[in-house]
């Protein structure tokens, strides 16, 4: 690659973080530190029923005995869990807005800067937004349309108050409170999140969307999302994440649980653009997330799609437990690391039922000094007759200081299974670049086009609005793209 190419690429990937701004709102925040009293206080603050407090305390007891995992291909300075504040809510909590008009204009302004003006969201066909500002849900739209369909879409706190039986039944049923270090921490201190319940036979009338945002200083964001799709139902859920610029690192340890019953389908899409830190690797979010779905019934389907461009460190493995016969798991991922970003991400597909199938498509793009690892597990248990898995992991390297790594684990205990894994690592080919340039495209446009092409298999899995945003996030404008 000649020097001008290298320069253009570094310009292309070196765009500055545009979502870096903070909103000046008074917050009601706990002092830093974590012990049983903090857990109890948090639960009390949220006016939770006894079972929730107990559940949190049990998780906290487990967490205290656990070690932070070290196996991921990432390096970071140890986190001091006692220096984090475990609760932060907008001051106006007591007087929650009834409609968008009542929402603090500064909040709305924040969303405008993020490019998701709520006022316009209503007009955007079929997208309801549950916005999480720091930890507490502040505005929810489209509730009525959803309510008419029997769909429950609300903040987790609200669900605990309004639908305690559902929460009790499903909370921790996919990701147990002691599943791993970060999941246990989340279980003890999660502040809020989203709750979705799709009744039997209902096709959710619109795509559901949540934007998360870390705002206050030194607050960890610990959301918890629980989606239950009853027999024969369908839901598509979109999650977008972004955070303001900070010099210090912030922790984000979320848990997402999906339950798909017989013949149900859940499509979960994420565009993650947390603050990645600056060019020297200062600041940025530590994104340690546990996402798991269970295909509980026959023919259930869970599909994860993620575009991970932000965070200083990404540690996440959206997984599917394929319990029902003929159930299907999918994982589509684009992860981009630039500057000093590190990503260790992938999936787990555990085949339990018969005739289950899973597909894994992972595209890693490494630039600058970024380190990008795919880590995945495909496990075919003894009873999973005729299980199928196909995995394709491709890495694109831009520059000679970055790294791309692939660590798949394949365990097969059934002889009728068929598991295929393929991976390639390469850089943008000179021939492709020259071809585009010979057609009159600038180097930068050529690179953008080729990188987008590289990620296309994943982008096409995203709902339209997200696909566009994802492409923009890769620094590329596909203006007037046809087809």
């Amino acid at each position, binding site marked *: *690659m000649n020097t001008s190419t290298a320069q253009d690429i570094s310009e292309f990937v070196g765009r500055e973080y545009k979502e870096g701004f903070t909103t000046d709102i008074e917050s009601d925040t706990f002092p830093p530190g974590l012990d049983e009293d903090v857990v109890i206080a948090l639960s009390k603050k949220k006016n939770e029923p006894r079972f929730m407090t107990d559940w949190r305390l049990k998780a906290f007891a487990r967490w205290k005995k656990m070690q932070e995992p070290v*196996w991921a291909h990432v390096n970071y300075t140890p986190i001091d869990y006692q220096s984090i504040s475990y609760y932060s809510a907008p001051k106006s909590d007591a007087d929650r807005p009834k409609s968008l008009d009542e929402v603090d204009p500064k909040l709305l302004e924040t969303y405008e800067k993020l490019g998701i003006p709520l006022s316009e969201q209503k007009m955007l066909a079929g997208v309801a937004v549950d916005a999480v500002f720091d930890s507490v849900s502040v505005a929810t739209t489209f509730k009525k349309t959803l309510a008419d369909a029997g769909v429950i879409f609300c903040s987790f706190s609200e669900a605990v108050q309004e639908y305690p039986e559902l929460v009790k039944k499903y909370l921790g049923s996919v990701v147990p409170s002691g599943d791993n270090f970060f999941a246990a921490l989340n279980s003890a201190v999660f502040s809020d999140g989203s709750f979705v319940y799709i009744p039997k036979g209902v096709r959710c009338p619109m795509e559901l969307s949540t934007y998360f945002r870390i705002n206050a200083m030194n607050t960890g964001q610990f959301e918890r999302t629980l989606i239950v799709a009853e027999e024969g139902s369908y839901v598509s859920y979109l999650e977008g994440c972004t955070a303001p610029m900070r010099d210090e690192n912030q922790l984000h340890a979320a848990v997402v649980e999906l339950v798909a019953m017989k013949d149900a389908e859940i499509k979960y899409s994420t565009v993650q653009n947390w603050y990645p830190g600056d060019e020297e690797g200062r600041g940025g979010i530590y994104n340690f997330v546990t996402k798991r779905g269970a295909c509980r019934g026959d023919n259930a389907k869970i599909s994860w799609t993620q575009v991970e461009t932000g965070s200083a460190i990404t540690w996440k493995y959206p997984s599917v437990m394929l319990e029902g016969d003929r159930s299907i798991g999918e994982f589509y991922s684009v992860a981009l690391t630039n500057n000093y970003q590190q990503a260790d991400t992938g999936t787990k597909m555990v085949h339990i039922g018969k005739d289950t199938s899973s597909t894994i498509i992972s595209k890693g793009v490494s630039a600058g000094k970024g380190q990008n690892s795919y880590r995945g597990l495909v496990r*075919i248990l*003894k009873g999973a007759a005729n299980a199928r898995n196909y995995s394709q992991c491709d*890495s694109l*390297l*831009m*520059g*000679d*200081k*970055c*790294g*791309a*790594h*692939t*660590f*798949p*684990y*394949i*365990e*097969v*205990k*059934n*002889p*009728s*299974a*068929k*598991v*295929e*894994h*393929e*991976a*390639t*690592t*390469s*850089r943008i080919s000179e021939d492709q670049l020259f071809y585009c340039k010979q057609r009159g495209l600038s180097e930068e446009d050529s690179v953008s086009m080729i990188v987008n092409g590289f990620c296309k298999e994943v982008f096409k899995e995203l709902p339209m609005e997200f696909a566009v945003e994802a492409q923009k996030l890769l620094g590329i404008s596909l203006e007037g793209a046809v087809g």
Partner: protein
Amino acid sequence: MRQSPLTGHLIGLHEELSGGLPGAQDATVAAMRQRAIARLTEIGLPKITDEAWRYTNIRAFDKVAFRPTAESNAALTKLDFAALEIPSLNRYRIVVLDGWVSEAHSTLDELPEGLVFNRLKNVLEGSADSETIQILEDRTARAGHGFEALNSAFAADGVVLRLEAGLELDKPLEILHITQNDANSRLANINHCITLEKGAKLNLIERYVSMADTRHMTNVSIRIDLAESAELSHYRIQDESDASMHIGYANARQNSDSCYRIFSISLGSLLDRHEVRQSLEGADAHCEMKGLYIGRGKQHIDNYTTVVHASPDASSDEFYKGILNDRSRAVFHGRIRVDPDAQHTDAHQQNRNLLLSTDAEADTKPQLEIYADDVKCSHGATVGYLEADAIFYLRSRGLSEAEARTILTEAFAAEILDQIELAPVREFLLELVRDKLVGDHNLKEAA
């Protein structure tokens, strides 16, 4: 940390036996052995909590009182050498009997000029070759697992071989390792060092057989150094007793323009762990690693390979295949690491597994770790069964289902074996593999 019974037993054994090992009176050798046993005490033998051993558990051997034998006991009883020959193979031979080089049964007199042979035993006793001792010492310090420390601690014998610059050996050299039939619980710690100077060429056959179904352990290290433009074709044929434990590790270093080909054929042992650690340290170095493993009964076969591309313009090509029957289990770990300076690396890796029985299992971990951008790297892994379409095709041509299965299974294995250039070795292995597969009860049942 709690020590495993086997680790404890071996440490105790060292105290008992170390005074009688070759070179025990030499201070350098004794110190080297002491450091090795200290290292073993520190890290112990591998446990499944070690990431590199997560699928391989040596606990089945925990209670075995493994014990090395004195050289005087390793004298040959009655052995039918003719039955051990690879048919129509014209070769030089060095025999290693129960861990000791048997000069009487080797063709040492025939070795040509330019091939410098020594026994590790002599090296240890004479301390003449400090380089070789340094190799054992270094390995102790870096020991990835307890078996390496164990091997240094009990280091007694092995082949130390040097091919001088430009020497192209006219015939293959076979190192034939034999464990005798009275050798229950026998422990053989073997260290070979093979050095090819500039432009030297060698066909090396590293072969293991047991004379009876005894529960013995072979713990063997082979250290390979290829200077500029040297070429080594290395055939490792492991066909030991189905009750034994075999731990082998080849560390190969390659200089520029050198070429290393290894065929690792695993047929025997209850537990076979074979590591190949390849380090490409010169431009245009090339290595090919081919493997075939056949699991039957309760065999556990673990191939653990690492290729480090430390210099630019080098290439590596790895292809391992396995056929698993009964309750056997195979593990494949393949790591390709491309260092930042290793631009223009071309590295590829494939692992394919065929499961023939409902109780067989395959675990595979192909890995790429890449720090340079102008590279072409790929890996792939599959686990599956015989294609129904292919079976049907053959049946439609009049073959029985059992015949069809046999043909397809043999063809699966032949894809590796057909790449062996030495015709007698290839034919020998095709025959051996066929026997193992036909002896296989599932195929028989189907017939």
